[in-house]
C-alpha cells in the first residue's frame, strides 16, 4: 500500500514536469526554438501572480487573468525583441539567444524582486483527498487534470486545425514554410504567447500555496529531460513522459536513495536523458529527422 502511495505521488509530480515540458514542446512545435530560458519564464509568471494577487491585493478572479496577460505580454515582447530577428538563423544562434535570455531574466528578477523567498497565493485548493488508505494531493491532482485537458486541447489544435498544421510546417523548416506562404513571424508570435501562457499554468500548479524564490526557475532544466523523452514535437508525449519520469524518480527515491545518500532520484532524470539520446534521440513520439546532403 505504501508502494502504491509512492507511485501515486510519482504520477502527480510527473504531471507537474509534464506541464513544464508541454510549454517547451509548444514553443518548439510552433517555431523550432528550444527555449532553455523556459524555467526563467515560469519564474517570471510566478512573480506576476505574486505581484497582482499578494502585493497589489487583487482578488484571484481579477489577479490571475491580469498575471496571465502580463505573462503573454512578456512572451510577445521576447518574441518581438529577440527571436523574430533570428528567424532563418542557425539553431546554434537561437539556442545561444535563449541562454542570453536566461541570464537576463534571472538577473532582472533578482534586481526587481530580490533573492529572498516570498509566499505564493493558494490558487488551487490545499490539502488532500482521502481515498481509502491513500492520500491524493488536491493541488497536484487538479493540476494533473488541467495538464491533461490542456495537452489534449493543444494536440487537437496542432493536428486538426489549419492554423495548427501551419505551425507544424514552421517547426519542420523555416525556409520551406516561408516559401509555402506560411508566416514564420506569425508562428513564432503564437508559439511564444502559447508557451508563456502554459508557463503561467505551470507556475500556478507548481507553486500554489508554497514559497516563491529565484530557485523556482530550476524546474526548467528538470523538465527538459521530460520534454526530450516525450519527443520535442509531441504534445501528447509531454504528459506521458512526465508521468514516466515522475514515477521513476519516486521509485529511485524510495529504493535507491538510501543506498546513494539521496543522489539517485536527483540524477535519475539526467541519466534517463542521456540514455534516451543514445537509444532513441527523437524521444518516444518525436519526429525522426532524415537528412540529405
Amino acid at each position: 500500500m505504501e508502494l502504491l502511495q509512492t507511485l501515486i505521488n510519482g504520477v502527480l509530480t510527473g504531471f507537474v514536469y509534464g506541464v513544464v515540458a508541454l510549454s517547451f514542446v509548444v514553443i518548439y512545435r510552433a517555431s523550432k526554438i528550444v527555449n532553455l530560458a523556459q524555467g526563467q519564464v515560469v519564474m517570471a509568471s510566478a512573480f506576476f501572480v505574486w505581484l497582482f494577487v499578494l502585493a497589489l491585493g487583487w482578488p484571484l478572479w481579477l489577479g490571475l487573468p491580469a498575471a496571465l496577460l502580463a505573462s503573454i505580454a512578456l512572451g510577445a515582447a521576447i518574441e518581438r525583441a529577440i527571436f523574430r530577428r533570428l528567424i532563418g538563423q542557425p539553431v546554434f544562434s537561437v539556442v545561444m539567444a535563449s541562454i542570453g535570455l536566461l541570464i537576463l531574466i534571472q538577473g532582472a528578477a533578482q534586481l526587481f524582486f530580490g533573492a529572498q523567498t516570498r509566499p505564493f497565493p493558494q490558487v488551487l485548493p490545499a490539502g488532500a483527498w482521502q481515498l481509502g488508505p491513500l492520500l491524493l494531493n488536491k493541488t497536484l491532482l487538479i493540476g494533473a487534470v488541467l495538464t491533461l485537458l490542456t495537452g489534449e486541447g493543444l494536440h487537437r489544435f496542432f493536428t486538426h486545425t489549419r492554423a495548427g498544421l501551419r505551425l507544424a510546417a514552421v517547426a519542420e523548416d523555416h525556409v520551406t514554410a516561408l516559401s509555402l506562404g506560411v508566416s514564420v513571424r506569425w508562428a513564432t508570435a503564437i508559439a511564444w504567447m502559447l508557451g508563456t501562457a502554459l508557463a503561467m499554468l505551470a507556475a500556478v500548479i507548481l507553486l500554489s500555496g508554497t514559497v516563491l524564490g529565484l530557485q523556482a526557475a530550476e524546474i526548467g532544466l528538470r523538465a527538459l529531460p521530460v520534454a526530450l523523452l516525450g519527443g520535442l514535437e509531441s504534445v501528447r508525449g509531454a504528459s506521458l513522459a512526465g508521468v514516466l519520469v515522475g514515477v521513476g524518480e519516486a521509485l529511485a527515491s524510495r529504493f535507491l536513495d538510501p543506498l546513494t545518500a539521496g543522489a539517485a532520484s536527483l540524477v535519475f532524470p539526467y541519466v534517463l536523458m542521456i540514455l534516451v539520446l543514445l537509444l532513441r534521440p527523437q524521444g518516444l513520439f518525436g519526429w525522426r529527422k532524415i537528412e540529405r546532403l
Partner: protein
Amino acid sequence: MAMLPSGVFFSSHAAERALVRTPPQRLALAALLLVLVLLPLLLNDYLLGVLTLAGVTLVAVLGLHITVGMAGQLNLGQSAFVGVGAFVAAALAAKGWSLWLCIPAAALAAGAVSILFGLPAVRIKGFYLALTTIAAQIMFPIVMIRLPEAWFGGTAGLPVDPPAVFGLVLDTPRSIYGLVLAVVVLAFLGAANLSRSRIGRAFRAMHDNDIASSVIGVDLARTKIMAFFAGAFFAGISGALYAYYVRYVSTEQFTLWLSVWYVGMLIVGGLHTPLGAVLGVLTITALQEGVHAAGGWVMAQTGSSLSGGTVFALTNVVLGGVIVLMLLFEPLGLAHRWALLKAAYRIWPYPRA
C-alpha cells in the same frame, strides 16, 4: 588569414604560414609580452588578482572555443570539466604530486570525463549534444559531494597547498600571475595551432557542414568526441590553475551559471578565433569590475546598502543584454570587428573591399 598591406611578399611557404609574419607584428608581440610580464610591478594586488582569475577563465574559454567555435558542438558544461580538473589537481597535490604532474593529470581527467558525455555524439548532433553537457553539469555536484570523503573531501571541499616550481614556492599573487600567464600563452598557441592542424581542419569542416564533411572522410563520431576531449583538456588545465590560485576547491565554485557565463564570454568575443576568447574574457571581466565599482560608488554616494546580490543581479542583466545584442547585431563577435578594423587600416586610403 587576414589581408596584409600591399608590398609584403614571402619567399617561403613556412614564412607565409607563420603565426607572426612581419617585423611590425613581431615588434607588437614583443611589446605585448613585455607589458604582460611587467604588469605585476604596476598593478596592486586586487587588480592583479582580477587579471589572474581572468587568465584562469581564459584557458577554459579557449577550450570552449575549440569545442564550440571550431568544431560547432555546443557545450554547456564547461565549468563541470573545470571542476573535475580542479578536484583532481587538489587531490593529487595533497598526495604530494608536483605541479608538473598535477596539471597534465587534471587535464587528462577532465578529458576522460568529457568522453563519457561525448559518447552520445555517436547518435545525435547539434543542440541535443548540448543537453548531455547540461546533464554533466547538473550531475557534477550531486555526484562529487557523495564520493568518499577521502577522495575529494565531500561537502567540505579540499584545501590546496601552494605549488613549487624549480624550488620556488608560488604563494604570492605575483608568482601565481606568472604561472597563469605562462600557461595562458601556451594555451593560446595550442588553440591557434590546433585550428591549422589536420584535426583542426576536420573540426572546422564538421562545423561548416557535418554531412558534407563525413562524405569527404571525416569520421563524425570520433571527431566530435575529440572536440569534446580537446575542450575539456583545456578546462582541466584551467581547473588546476584555479585550485592553485584560490587554494581551496568545493563544488559550489563550479556551477551551471559559470558554464553559461563562459559561453557568454565566447559569444561576445567571437566564437571562431582564439583572439575572440581573449577579447570576450577581457570585456566581460571589465564589465563585471565596472558594475562592481559603479555599485560601490553608488553605495558610497547614497549611503544606501546595496547588497552584493544586487550587484550580481545587475552584472547578469548587463551580461545577458550584451549576449543578446551581440547575437542580433554582431554574431561574429568583437574579434570580427577587430579584423575589419585591421583590414581598413591596412588598405587605407582605399575604401573597404
